[in-house]
């Protein structure tokens, strides 16, 4: 086979630490024909707003965009589940010619009557602006008639990148903020931003804050509720995860309501604990919160520590590749993998910015490849060259790893297992352990090639069977 070629225009978005001066480009529109792993503006908006469970999400356009985003995420709700339904105006040729406003109006009115949502988000897809639909006007009209907020989301797929979609979603959310009463909100209160309750993660995190004595006014958007968003301006602090997605909203809330924000991550012991400590530090006038936080961190870590140590012994020295949507997640994963004694040989993201990649460069070891907006060929090239044992990514990256006999951990929104928080870290470690230690890899032809060189190590380091049993029960 011929070597996997890297497109010249892509070279500036790939950096190998220690081999060249750091001049990485990012934030560029994806190169045509390069098979980017990114999605579009619509995707950005859809992922941010998706978990709001008592709102109606209507996708205005032909059927594809709605069909491909129907119930695809593991975002759980403790109550209504409107978010798990897929609604589309399903525009047909005649709508494209004569305009889709009439259909939007009727579809929207009908859906509101049936489902009685607290608010409605109307996502514009690629062609909506081009055919000249005045979505804003239809939303206003229906809002007036039905007495609920009907919020247009300007998410035409081609109008930027996924990040612009995040911003469009934040713009829509921001219209809700400030509408509700802030009465009774504690002076020790926060909003959780950028946490989407995948597999119940928001519930895990909220429980920590509750035990610390901190009130969570609103979670945006995991297990989200419209009324909570409406009163979220009553919180004292915004705690922002998934920085790419919701910093826009935090900025707007800071400007208008003077609410400061901090950036956190809930993945891995280090970042998880820091997220709690940083919030506690913000409420330094009430030292009990910090005391309580220390207690929680101690207690939580002591719960999972023994099992983590076993896993660590089993996965130590394995090599991992990371390719995720946001760079902030990559930082946490690098730390979490290091905690398990693993080496990161590839780190990349779809939407990182200059500062993100500088941070990545500083965090990574020499030889680690850093990529922005990679494609399948680049990813495969580097996981093979760097002899990764594990790939962490999403659905689109999984088969790349599997074909080459490499273990995989899904860290994207489709997964159903919580990986955030302390219990999530244990889940993550277990998943990493289970995938890298599966007996099936010995049958993988790509791995057999390198078996001979590893044989010595395996012979000297036999893993007792009892360990497998403990982890599986």
């Amino acid at each position, binding site marked *: 086979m011929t070597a*996997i*070629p890297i*497109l010249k225009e892509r070279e500036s978005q790939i950096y190998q630490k220690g081999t060249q001066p750091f001049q990485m480009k990012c934030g560029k*529109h*994806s190169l*045509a*024909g*390069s*098979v*980017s*792993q990114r999605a*579009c503006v619509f995707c950005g908006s859809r992922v941010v707003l998706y978990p709001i469970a008592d709102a109606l999400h*209507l996708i205005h*356009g*032909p*059927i*594809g*965009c*709605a*069909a*491909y985003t*129907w119930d*695809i995420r593991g975002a759980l709700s403790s109550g209504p589940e409107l978010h798990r339904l*897929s609604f*589309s*105006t399903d*525009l*047909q*040729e005649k*709508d*494209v010619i004569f305009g889709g406003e009439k259909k939007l*109006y*009727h*579809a929207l009115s*009908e*859906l509101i009557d049936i489902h009685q949502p607290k608010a409605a988000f109307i996502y514009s*897809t*690629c*062609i909506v602006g*081009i*055919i000249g639909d005045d979505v804003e006007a239809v939303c206003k009209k229906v809002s007036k008639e039905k007495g609920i907020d009907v919020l247009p989301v300007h998410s035409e*797929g*081609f*109008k*930027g990148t996924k990040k612009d979609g995040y911003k469009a979603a934040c713009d829509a959310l921001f219209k809700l903020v400030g509408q509700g009463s802030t009465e009774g909100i504690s002076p020790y209160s926060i909003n959780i931003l950028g946490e989407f309750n995948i597999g119940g993660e928001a519930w895990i995190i909220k429980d920590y804050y509750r035990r610390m004595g901190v009130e969570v006014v609103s979670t945006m958007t995991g297990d989200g509720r419209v009324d909570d968003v409406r009163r979220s301006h009553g919180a004292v602090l915004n705690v922002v995860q998934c920085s790419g997605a919701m910093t826009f909203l935090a900025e707007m809330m800071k400007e208008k309501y003077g609410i400061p924000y901090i950036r956190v991550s809930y993945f891995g012991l280090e970042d998880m604990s820091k997220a709690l400590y940083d919030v506690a530090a913000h409420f330094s006038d009430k030292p009990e919160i910090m005391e309580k936080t220390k207690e929680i961190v101690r207690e939580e870590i002591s719960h999972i520590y023994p099992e983590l140590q076993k896993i660590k012994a089993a996965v130590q020295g394995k090599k991992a590749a990371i390719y995720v949507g946001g760079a902030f997640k990559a930082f946490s994963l690098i730390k979490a993998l290091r905690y398990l004694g693993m080496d990161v040989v590839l780190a990349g993201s779809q939407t990182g910015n200059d500062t993100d990649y500088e941070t990545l460069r500083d965090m990574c070891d020499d030889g680690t490849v850093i990529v922005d907006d990679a*494609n399948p*060929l680049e990813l495969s*090239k580097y996981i*093979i060259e760097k002899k990764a044992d594990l790939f962490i990514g999403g*659905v*689109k990256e*999984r*088969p*790349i790893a*599997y*074909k*080459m006999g490499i273990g995989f951990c899904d860290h994207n929104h489709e997964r159903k297992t919580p990986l955030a928080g302390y219990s999530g870290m244990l889940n993550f470690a277990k998943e990493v352990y289970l995938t890298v230690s599966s007996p099936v890899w010995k*049958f993988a*032809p790509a791995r057999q*090639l390198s078996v001979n060189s590893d044989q010595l190590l395996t012979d000297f380091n036999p893993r007792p069977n009892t360990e497998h049993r403990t982890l599986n029960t």
Partner: protein
Amino acid sequence: MNNLAIKKEEYTATKNACKLCTPLGASLVFKGIRGAVPLLHGSQGCSTYIRRYLISHYKEPIDIACSNFAEETAIFGGGANLKIALENIRRQYDPELVGIATTCLSETIGDDVPMFIREYKDMCEGQELPPIVHISTPSYQGTHMQGFHGAVRALVEGVAEKREQDGRINLFPGMVSPADLRHLKEIMKDFGIPFTMLPDYSDTLDGPLWTEYQRIPPGGTPVEEIRAAGSALGSIEFGSVLAMEKESAGRSLFKKFAVPCHSMGLPIGVDETDRFFNTLSSVSGKPIPAKYQEERGRLLDSYVDGHKYVIEARAVVYGEEDLVASLVQFLKEIGVIPVLCASGGRSGHLQKIIAEMIPDDEQKNIRILENADFTDIESMAEELKADLIIGHSKGYTMSRRLNIPLIRIGFPVHDRVGGARIHHIGYRGTQELFDRIANTLIEARQNASSAGYTYM
């Protein structure tokens, strides 16, 4: 009339769609051509969403390139982007064919893709270019099936040639599984008939592990065989709804090269499979291999063994129109009543086809729902007191809520492994499907019994 077709309101929303968009079907076809790269002319999301959707079913790397529109592309047209995309695909993948499918965006702004391709070819004068095949697939026209059949037609229209007749048969299998495609190839080989099967994603979308990374997964219909399709003895084209459409790959080859076209339903069930084997035999002049007579024998034997478990069971069937029509034909054969036949497609032919299969005088009260979504299907399934649901995995929610077992077939199967290996055509495939249906009904009976019998 008893066959009751339901028409829907014009301005209603589609709620939990039972269809996908046109470019998905076209991309799938291009994935079944050897050395081909599909290229969507539109926004990055189109290719990423379709890749994700396909990968979750086939569990294989599926690269689909995109011309990746930006705001200025939508204003000034997508020509420049399409050419850059073609250039980059050639540099990265060195393809044997590029299949371009448009999207709603590029169609709405009125991009003239054939002209862009001509311009690109002019730009590359003197270079050896792979065939570039184009199909127009705005998602506001039809469903993924129009994209699928359209891409097959575009391939033969763009690539097939008239040559000396070489005894080959063209096979246009429609949107079946890799396991089905493998079975069809086995049949053709056992007959000893040279053939062009288009598409053939049996290896590209259900392949082995690799030693080295494959830029384009091995397998697929060779371009050379598509060229030869113009000189075949005849074409066999599956899909009873397709047979009623104005255009198809088979008919196009007939018009252009006088290759006779034999249209039939998917070979599910004894009758349709007989028809397929008899056609193969009569077109090629070769006898049906004994192996298939034996398979047929076993299938009939299993029909008899299981007939009491399945008779008059009430089934809800949904999916692509061609698939639904063929399933109805099969279910009728074993005495299962397809109480609801639904599709997100809206060809307008489904009702007529089913009415012919199951005449009114049989008093079955069958409901046929075109342009259906899962909200329609579920509410009707509940009312009809169905015993089982047959369709893809998006019916799981309905199955769970109504507590009616779901038999997963077709595309997609996103909640199980092995979706690519579900086999339901030919005698052997029908056998597998029949066993699953019978066993599902037996299991439901067993579970419902308080005795917990171990003999059923």
